């Protein structure tokens, strides 16, 4: 109880509350604008958190990501353009509801089930994280090696079209992580003799480049055309919430459970949760023929899932220091900067911070209802901000943000290089998320790999000798095998069937 009181004490400060409110508005704005993702919102937010205490910094990131994932539904429903990739799965369906004049039902359901899904994910996080932390205390380098590899594997293979391109992205990230002195032998690697590179490539500048500058380049390339103006009028959003809740409780529960589970799995997050849940909803529906015609069922399930995944993704992040998705990848980086090193010992040494994180999750999902209502009402104004003005402004914030990471112009160069890299990668269908996880998890993977190899005297069999390590190892190998087999089968099918799908 004392811990909980201490946690409340950490949160109930005017600066924490103000920070959360500002982060909520920022998250809603960025999430609602197509092309600007939740990850990008976090990457742009990070430089402002350097000067905060750990709790408001973490609170800002939690609130911002929850709001951005919900707000992605708004342009998806109004314009059929998802605001973030996590809303892409059901943007088409939701837009058809708008065409039928049911925009307010769709948006109301998005708001309700996003908030409920977020709370469900939080509940699982609160129950699971402390329990898993006790298990994790017994982990050795072998288990951590497999956990890190599992996270990278899921990020690479699940939800990416071509496993080979996902792998290439991952290897680029891992190589970026090797730059500098930070390795078991303390030898400078790939530094070109430049002292700026001795400390390694700052991952926040890299992240701003990969997620934000690449998008600025993409919009600049196509000439920053304005979005169409939404025509839908939105009435009372809260109408029929009780009825929706009663009618769709099986779908929302299934979406919550599946979303949280996908979030907990290291390396897979909200985007994948939404796609999988939409497909599951259709499969188990009594009226699958209605899907694609403006049917609420699938929307309920997947909009629950993507917000539930956010809470789930924090489980491996807090317990093992392994990101559940690209948002928690950034969060882990910030936690280290703040001296709140994620891992099982955090639960022993700093339980009030953990409880404060849980409380902020609950607050974020509760204030989503009034703030989200405001965002939907203001949606037409938000969507009217022309990209030709927004993009240069975002570029300027990227540059200042990169500079602020170490107060050095060198980091602006890092940002630019990674912006161009991210742009070229996306142009060639190489996904960015595996690269990010590679940069974040690279040092952990290497350290545990080398330590394990030294311990086992070079025998790879030792990686399977401890029971949990063996289980994690086999599961990781299974995901590798399954993805290559399924991609091979898909290729065969495409070769047998020359007509384009």
């Amino acid at each position, binding site marked *: 109880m004392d811990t909980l009181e201490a946690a409340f004490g950490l949160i109930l400060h005017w600066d924490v509350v103000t920070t959360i409110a500002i982060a909520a508005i920022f998250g809603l704005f960025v999430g609602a604008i197509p092309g600007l993702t939740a990850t990008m919102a976090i990457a742009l937010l990070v*430089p*402002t958190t*350097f*000067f905060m205490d750990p709790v408001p910094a973490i609170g800002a990131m939690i609130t911002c990501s929850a709001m951005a994932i919900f707000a992605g539904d708004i342009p998806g429903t109004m314009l059929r353009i998802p605001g973030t990739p996590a809303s892409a799965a059901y943007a088409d369906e939701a837009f058809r509801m708008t065409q039928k004049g049911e925009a307010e039902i769709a948006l109301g359901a998005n708001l309700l089930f996003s908030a409920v899904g977020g709370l469900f994910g939080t509940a699982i996080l609160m129950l699971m994280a402390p329990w898993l932390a006790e298990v994790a205390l017994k982990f050795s380098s072998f288990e951590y090696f497999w956990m890190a590899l599992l996270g990278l594997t899921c990020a690479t293979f699940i939800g990416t079209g071509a496993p*080979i*391109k996902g*792998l*290439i992205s991952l*290897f*680029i990230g*891992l*190589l970026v992580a*090797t730059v500098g002195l930070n*390795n*078991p*032998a303390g*030898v400078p*690697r*790939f530094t070109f003799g430049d002292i700026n590179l001795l400390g390694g490539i700052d991952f926040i500048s890299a992240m701003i480049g990969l997620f934000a*500058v690449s998008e*600025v*380049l993409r919009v*600049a*390339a*196509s*000439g*920053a055309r304005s979005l169409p103006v939404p025509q839908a009028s939105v009435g009372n959003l809260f109408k029929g919430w009780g009825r929706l809740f009663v009618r769709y409780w099986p779908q929302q529960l299934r979406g919550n459970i599946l979303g949280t589970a996908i979030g907990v799995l290291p390396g897979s997050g909200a985007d994948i949760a939404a796609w999988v849940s939409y497909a599951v909803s259709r499969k188990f529906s009594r009226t699958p023929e209605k899907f694609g015609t403006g049917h609420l069922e699938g929307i309920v399930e997947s909009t629950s899932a993507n917000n539930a995944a956010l809470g789930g993704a924090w489980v491996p992040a807090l317990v093992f220091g392994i990101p559940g998705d690209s948002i928690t990848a950034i969060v882990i980086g910030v936690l280290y900067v703040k001296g709140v090193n994620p891992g099982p010992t955090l639960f022993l040494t700093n339980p009030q911070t953990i409880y404060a994180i849980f409380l902020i999750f609950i607050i974020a999902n509760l204030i989503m209802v009034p703030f989200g209502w405001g965002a939907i009402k203001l949606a037409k104004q938000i969507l009217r901000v022309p*990209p*030709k*003005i927004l*993009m*240069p*402004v975002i*570029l*300027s*914030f990227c*540059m*200042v943000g990169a*500079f*602020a990471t170490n*107060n050095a*112009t060198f980091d*602006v*160069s890092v*940002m*630019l290089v990674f*912006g*161009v890299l991210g*742009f*070229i990668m996306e*142009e*060639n*269908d190489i996904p960015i998320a595996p690269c990010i996880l590679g940069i974040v998890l690279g040092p952990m*993977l*290497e350290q545990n*790999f*080398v330590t394990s*190899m*030294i311990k086992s005297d*070079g025998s790879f069999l030792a990686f399977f000798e401890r029971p949990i390590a063996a289980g994690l190892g086999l599961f990781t190998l299974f995901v590798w095998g399954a993805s290559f087999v399924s991609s091979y089968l898909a290729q065969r099918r495409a070769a047998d069937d020359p007509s384009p799908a």
Partner: protein
Amino acid sequence: MRFNDAVLGGALLVFSIVIGLWSQSFPAIPGQEYGAAVFPATVATGMGLCSLVLIVSGLRQKGVALAFAGWAQDWRGFVRILVVIASVVFYIAAAKPLGFIPTMTLVLLANLKQLGVGWLQSIVIAIAISLLIQWSFGDLLHVPLPWGILSAYRF
């Protein structure tokens, strides 16, 4: 601007060979078999294998080495990308001597103008955003943004 998989694979193959060879030059820890070279060499090997797969699939697809679709069909798209990159390079070079506010105003002006925003609107936005960042990041968050030629007027 899509490269054929074979071209992409070829470039990555060369890159991974360079990284693999380079990592062999890292000094070993005496009496220790697994040192600084193990990990980058393993990653480079993996990347090399992937690039071979890409080369094979790219050669099977045939097609051109570099396809220009969407924005890349218009040369102005490339110019706009170059202006964005050039403006960041200009910032890196000029921020210190010139100061944050003038440099960022010019960067914003170049980018707003090239996307078709009118002169008056561009100038107002460029100056307003530069001042806003100087105040929020420089003043509130204590980021030491350089003042340069405006040192006498710092706030």
